[in-house]
């Protein structure tokens, strides 16, 4: 019975691709999201997602690949934030806010010039994981490999600049270069995720699994691995839910991740709500 329930969707090619895509996105967002959670940059993920809109709109108007447009815009916004906030003249938060608002407005402006109902565009806005083509999947897979490999190879360096910038300076690490690289990795992650969960929900995929894992672990490496598992699990479960209950896939994935978070928030050992309530009595 359960086996049937699990296997039936797999007989459809679009479901196979969708499952792979949503698992990849779940893993990627969760791993990159750990840094977002730890450096309290949830705002940044959201800003990048919206900052990508004008790139997508321009690509649509020029009839080139939407993902390429998104990629270019994402990297541009990431570097723009890095540029404005370099040397601390403007706080990173403020730089993000300015660029976020500007790109979103530009995106809305450009999209409003598109008269015809644009199906592709709504897919970027809300995600359409079931429409992933084999070519999309290859591109996604490639980007996921690039981002994850970079994060694994530069684990030490990213750890030090996030935890203790003063020590990073004493070690003479190129802090600005690493910070910009992290922004670019984040931009790539956001672009990869757009097709699955859409602009509005990328931030949730970035933050929620990482936040859940944070409650359960005490080391960054463990946090990343657990977050990746939670992200992949949410991606798959969310897609099954969307298949059987015929609901929007992106929202189903995000809500699955949120359910896991709430469960953990209540029940986690040491950091969970119930645990902290109980502790004085034991």
């Amino acid at each position: 019975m359960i086996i049937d329930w699990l296997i039936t969707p797999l007989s459809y090619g679009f479901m196979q691709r969708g499952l792979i895509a949503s698992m990849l996105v779940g893993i990627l967002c969760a791993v990159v999201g750990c840094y977002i959670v730890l450096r309290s940059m949830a705002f940044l993920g959201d800003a990048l997602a919206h900052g990508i809109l004008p790139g997508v709109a321009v690509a649509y108007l020029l009839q080139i690949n939407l993902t390429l447009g998104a990629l270019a815009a994402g990297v541009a916004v990431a570097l723009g934030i890095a540029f404005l906030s370099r040397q601390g003249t403007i706080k990173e938060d403020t730089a993000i806010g300015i660029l976020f608002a500007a790109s979103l407005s530009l995106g809305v402006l450009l999209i409003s010039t598109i008269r015809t109902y644009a199906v592709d565009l709504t897919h970027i806005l809300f995600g359409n994981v079931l429409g992933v083509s084999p070519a999309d999947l290859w591109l996604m897979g490639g980007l996921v490999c690039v981002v994850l490999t970079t994060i694994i190879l530069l684990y030490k360096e990213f750890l030090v600049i996030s935890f203790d910038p003063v020590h990073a300076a004493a070690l003479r690490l190129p802090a600005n270069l690493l910070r910009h690289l992290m922004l670019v990795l984040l931009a790539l992650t956001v672009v990869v995720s757009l097709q699955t969960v859409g602009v509005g929900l990328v931030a949730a995929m970035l933050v929620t699994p990482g936040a859940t894992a944070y409650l359960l672990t005490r080391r960054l490496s463990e946090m990343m691995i657990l977050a990746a598992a939670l992200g992949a699990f949410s991606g798959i479960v969310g897609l099954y839910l969307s298949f059987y209950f015929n609901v929007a896939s992106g929202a189903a994935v995000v809500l699955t991740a949120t359910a896991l978070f709430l469960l953990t928030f209540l029940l986690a050992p040491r950091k969970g709500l119930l645990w902290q309530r109980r502790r004085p009595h034991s």
Partner: protein
Amino acid sequence: MSLPDEPARLELYHVTVAYGGQLALQDVTLQVPHGAQVAVVGPNGAGKSTLFKVLVGLLPVQAGQIFIHGRPLGAHHDCVAYVPQREEVDWRFPVTVADVVMMGRYGRLGWLKRPKAYDRAIVMRSLEQLGIAELADRPIGELSGGQQRRTFLARALAQEPHILLMDEPFTGVDAATQETTMRLLEQLRDKCVTVLLSTHDLNLAATHFEQVILLNKRLIRYGSAEQVLTPETITETFGGQVFWLEIHGGGQRMATASHCCPPEPIDSTKRR
């Protein structure tokens, strides 16, 4: 032990540092021989922390030059370890004590390399030397202030530096941590590590350090405790206070008294 004919290994020539337009260090020239242990003393705002930040590359020099082992600052990657006055780390970050101490090894490891058994052994030894081996797997945020300080000292030790900069390690710690730090200094002396340590405890500077830098934006004096901590220099630098000093090696006591506090203004509204 530092030999008299050993070449100077840390050299500053006419170093000037400013925050914005305001000078914090002015025309500081000094040469510290290899393996010397030097106390850096001076009143609040004298530029002690600034000096350390410059040496570690956190602040640019406005003018002047700094050489380590005869090569300009920045040519070396991790031979300077720094324990700041106030750690500015994210205490809620998911790292354990052992992880933090391992960060001391990162410079030696270099890009793309992972810690080996050798590095883990050094981390373990550093933890033991500071008496916090049993805290190795605890999250850094769940330690007491003194335990956190020991963790960062252990990290500096694991770095195996040639030059160790300790900014006021004795402020706000208990006698045991102070004792551990002093023992650590002795071990470092045997390993010929150059130590610069800032402190407000003139007595400690006089008794435990062969050399003293007296700083107040400018270099007031640099030399042996006896030469530097004289009644005149102390009065000049610190103003009206009384100190009892026991000089390094010598054992004689020296009293430095100065004129009493500057006359209070009669206007009582200015009092706090």
